[in-house]
Every structure is written in structure tokens, then in C-alpha cells.
């Protein structure tokens, strides 16, 4: 079973890329592949390359990968309730990260950990507490402190706010955005929230069934999406001006089972614009207008898919 296929993406230094798709589209798998943390067995990367600052991570030795993980590329995980080691104090978990990638030891590393905690808004007297003594939002802050402790050049956030309360979500996103500019890292944000992407990211990639279907900068993609799937996603976002009690617009059907992908374009069975060619073969990524890539034979006309 191939969870992710033919995925081709570029992320420029200091930029933020939003990675949007439904549950099961392969977003997390892609992120874990970048860090080479796919659980093997059963998972395996069968081909391709992951270029990071001019080096292919796929070809690195285990020791080189360890150097990169945490130090150059770090990750904020989806579920703060389970992502921290329950038996270690939060301070120790940050100190571990610092000890691995810097010359700081003992008291110095401890001080740096307290700085990081202060940066994410956790009081120093709570540093000796264990994860279970914190709320979900606080734990995610600890996760952010760990991820940014070594000032990575790429930060991956895998749905960092999905498991949190709506009221906390905005705070946490705000914090990540602020710290991203402070530390000046590139940022890969995995989410299914198009609103958050619009606020934070420079570029956006839409993923469907393990493939990128559309990829562009925010302005182009939000003003005129080309792929019918992207259009469907926008339509599914509830608006304040819809009539109360009215039904939300949904994309008919379900995402395909990755074991049994449809022939041709993976979206064709659900696509309102599908023509016989779509069921025959996939289009492949093409540049429809400068910097706006789409994987569709019959993209929406410019202007047709416009969003206010």
C-alpha cells in the first residue's frame, strides 16, 4: 500500500508552507518521512529524495540523520496529551534536546530550558512538574519549547492545534507564528484548517489521497483555486452569511482507500467536472500559471473558482 505518491514540494528558507488535506491524505506520513521517522516495519520509503540544505536526507547515515533531527529539523506533534514522556519532568525533556545538540551542559542547559519555557509562557516554578500536571494547551507549549530549543532551520507542525480547545487553538497558533519569526525558521504547517493557513503561510499545498493536487502561493490559490477538490474544500468552510439551519456544503463521497485507488485521477469518482479522460489517466502536476501548479486535466477557469 502506498500512502504517499509522486509528491514533489519545495520549501524556501524562512517561508511557511501550509499542507492541507483531509484526514488520511498522507500529510503526517510526509512529515515523518522528512524526519525519517516512519516506523519500519511496517512502513518503508520506497523511493525519491528529500533534499535539505543541499543534502539528501535519504542517503544520510543514521548518525547524520540524528544530527539533523531536533537540531535542524524539529517537529511539533499533533497530540500533546501523548507526545511527552510521562515519567520525565518537562524541564528534563527540554534539557535532553539541548544536551543532544549543543555544548551546553548541566546548569547552563537547565537555564536555557527555563528560558524556552518562559518564551512559551510557562512559569519557571513549574519546570519540575510532570506532563500530567499540565493541561493540553500547556503541554503543547512544552512541545513547542522542545521543538524550538535548538533553533531549527525547519519546523514541522503536525496539526498542532487539532487536539486543543478552540479558545486555546488561536493562542497556540499565535505563539508558533511569533516564535517562527523570532527564530527565523522555515515552517511546514500540516492542518485541515484553510483559515489558519491563510493567516500564517506563504505557500500552500493541497493534498488528496497521497498526492499533491494543487500547489501555489496563498494569494493565487485563495483568489482562484484551480483544482475542483480545492474548490470543494473552500465551499465546505462554513460562512457567517449562510442562512441559519442551512446545510453545510460537502464534497460528495469519501476519500478513496489507499489500498484501492481509482484508475486515473484519484479524485475523479467524486469530481463534478470529471470527463472520460480523468478516469483513464492522471494528469500529473503542471504549471497552469506562473507559480501555480495543479494536477488536473480540466482545471477551473481563472475566475471561475474565485473566493471572496
Amino acid at each position, binding site marked *: 500500500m502506498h500512502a504517499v505518491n509522486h509528491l514533489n514540494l519545495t520549501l524556501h528558507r524562512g517561508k511557511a508552507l501550509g499542507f492541507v488535506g483531509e484526514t488520511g491524505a498522507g500529510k503526517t506520513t510526509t512529515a*515523518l518521512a522528512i*524526519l525519517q*521517522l516512519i*516506523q519500519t*516495519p511496517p512502513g518503508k520509503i520506497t523511493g525519491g529524495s528529500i533534499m535539505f540544505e543541499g543534502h539528501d536526507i535519504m542517503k544520510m547515515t*543514521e548518525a547524520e*540523520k*540524528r*544530527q*539533523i*533531527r*531536533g*537540531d535542524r529539523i*524539529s*517537529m511539533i*506533534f499533533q*497530540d500533546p496529551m*501523548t*507526545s*511527552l*514522556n*510521562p*515519567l520525565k519532568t518537562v524541564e528534563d525533556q527540554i534539557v*535532553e*534536546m539541548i544536551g*543532544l*545538540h549543543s555544548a551546553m551542559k548541566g546548569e547552563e542547559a537547565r537555564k536555557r530550558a527555563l528560558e524556552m519555557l518562559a518564551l512559551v509562557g510557562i512559569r519557571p516554578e513549574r519546570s519540575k512538574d*510532570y506532563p*500530567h500536571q499540565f493541561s493540553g494547551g500547556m503541554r503543547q507549549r512544552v*512541545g513547542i519549547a*522542545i521543538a524550538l530549543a535548538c533553533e531549527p532551520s525547519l519546523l514541522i507542525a503536525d496539526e498542532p492545534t487539532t487536539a486543543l480547545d478552540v479558545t486555546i487553538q488561536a493562542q497556540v497558533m499565535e505563539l508558533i507564528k511569533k516564535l517562527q519569526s523570532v527564530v527565523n525558521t522555515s515552517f511546514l504547517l500540516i492542518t485541515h484548517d484553510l483559515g489558519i493557513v491563510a493567516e500564517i503561510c506563504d505557500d500552500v499545498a493541497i493534498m488528496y489521497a497521497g498526492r499533491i493536487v494543487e500547489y501555489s502561493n496563498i494569494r493565487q490559490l485563495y483568489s482562484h483555486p484551480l483544482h475542483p477538490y480545492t474548490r470543494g474544500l473552500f465551499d465546505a468552510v462554513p460562512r457567517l452569511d449562510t442562512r441559519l439551519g442551512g446545510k453545510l456544503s460537502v464534497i460528495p463521497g469519501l476519500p478513496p482507500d489507499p489500498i484501492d485507488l481509482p484508475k486515473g485521477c484519484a479524485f475523479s469518482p467524486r469530481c463534478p467536472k470529471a470527463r472520460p479522460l480523468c478516469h483513464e489517466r492522471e494528469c500529473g502536476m503542471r504549471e497552469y500559471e506562473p507559480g501555480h501548479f495543479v494536477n488536473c486535466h480540466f482545471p477551473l477557469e481563472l475566475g471561475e473558482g474565485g473566493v471572496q
Partner: protein
Amino acid sequence: MVKYIFRRVLLLLLVVVSVMVIIFTILYFTPGDPAKSALGQDANPESIAAFHAKYGLDKPYPEQLARYLYKAIFKLDLGYSYMMKSPVSMELATRIPVTMKLAFWAVVLSTLIGIPLGVICSIRQYSFLDSLATLVTLLGVSMPTFWTGLLLILAFSVHLGWLPSMGASTVSEMILPIVTLSGSSIAVIARMTRSSMLEVIRSDYIRTARAKGQKERVVIMRHALPNAMIPILTIISMQFGALLSGSIVTEAIFSISGVGRLMLEAINLRDYPVIQGGVLFISVAFCLINMAVDILYAFIDPRIHVK
């Protein structure tokens, strides 16, 4: 903490008293007359009656039970052995160190082998080594102690002549009984370690540790193993209890004069006070170990609050 321990000790006393009542009752209603075992099958009725009178066996059940409990609890007097004509507590005192020594080393050995074996199997899941270990541990669990013991004697004492087959006073004498006792415990501990580790290794915080760039060895030893430890500790403490009662078989095979063999002889001869004393020892030891492990949990896992 002190309050918790105090409450656990009270609970322990309750368990021990219940064990005493149960074992006394079972023995009381078990057919067979200790007087006949002690005096011979054709002893005359007068001497049997005298024996009964001497040990209070002619009294009704509640009175006997009350007397036994009263003496054991308030005077620490476990009675008098019918056969050996000596206090049960004295008999136990000389035998307990032997049994404890064997059980202790068996637990140490099975922990030292079982945990690393389980860890290796979990990180090399479905490898050849894992399958082999699964097969061997399955054998270890299924093999009765007396059978392992006899096979070991046959191999190492009879055929190879490397190790003595009797006693437990010297190191070389202790090897075979300890290995026999450990056999199934190693298997049980290794299997528990494997399954507990497999569960922990898949958890998110292990992925977090790897994402930090931590070495795999450290991820396993410092992050995964401590988190997998609670079920492993539980199974080790239960193995300790199993080893104490397993000593009945092992000590018989290797002719070791420990509590197990004492109990076995006492059962054959219906030496009630000795049987009661032996069972009491095993249950007290088992309860104490369980309690120690429960307290240990709180030190391993900060989420367990000792109230």
C-alpha cells in the same frame, strides 16, 4: 506515604489472618488422623486419645481455631510439630533462609535474563531471534518444574557429572535448583517485557524522543523501558510468590531441606502445625513483596499518587 504504608500493613494482617483461618479449616476437614500418622496405624485407642488430648485435637472446631489464632497472633506461637517434637517456629527459622536464598537468586537470575531478552525481542520484532525466543519461552512456560529439574539432573549430574544433584549449601549445589526454579520465570518475565515494550515503543513520546535526534539505545533504555516497567515489576513480584510455592517441588527433587520440603513431609505425615506454619510463611512473604512493589510503583511513575 507513611499513612499509605500503615494502611497496607493493616490490609496485610487481614489477608494473613484470612489465610490462617482458611488453611486451618481445610486441614481440619481433611480426612486422616495425625495421631495415627504419629503413633503408627495400630496404636491403641488410649494412646490416640492421649495424643488428641495433648494437642487439643479432641476439642470442637471453633475452639481449636480460636486457640490456634490466639496463640499465633498474640504469642507468636505456631504450635508444636507432632513428628519432630519441636516448635514449628524453630523448624521454620532454620528452613526459611534456605528457601529464601534459592527464591531470591532465582528471581535475580530470571530478571537479569528475562528483561534483556524481552527488550531485544521487542526491538527486533518478528526477527529470527524473536521467533526463537518465543518458541523457547513457550517451552519454558509449559514445562513443569519437576520435569525441567529431572532433565537438568540427568544432563548435568548423571551424564556430564559437572554439578551435584543434591543440597543447596555450596554455590555449585545451588546452580541446578536455581536454574530449575528460574526456567518458567525467565519465560514469563521475557514475554511480559516484550509485550509491554512493544506497546510503549509505538507511543507518541517515543517518536518525540526519536525526533529529538536521540540515539536509539537511549530511546529504548531511558524512554521506553521505564515506561514499560510497571507491568514487568508486577509480574516479577508474582513470580517471587510462584517461586516460593514452587520450592515445594524443587526442594523435593534436589533434596534440599527448605520450607518446601518441610511442608511436603508435613503433608504426608499430617503434621498440621507445620503445614499451617509453612503456608503462613509463604503468604506473608508474598504479601510483603506485593506491598514493596506497590510502593515502588510510586517512585517509578509520578502519575501514581500515594495517598
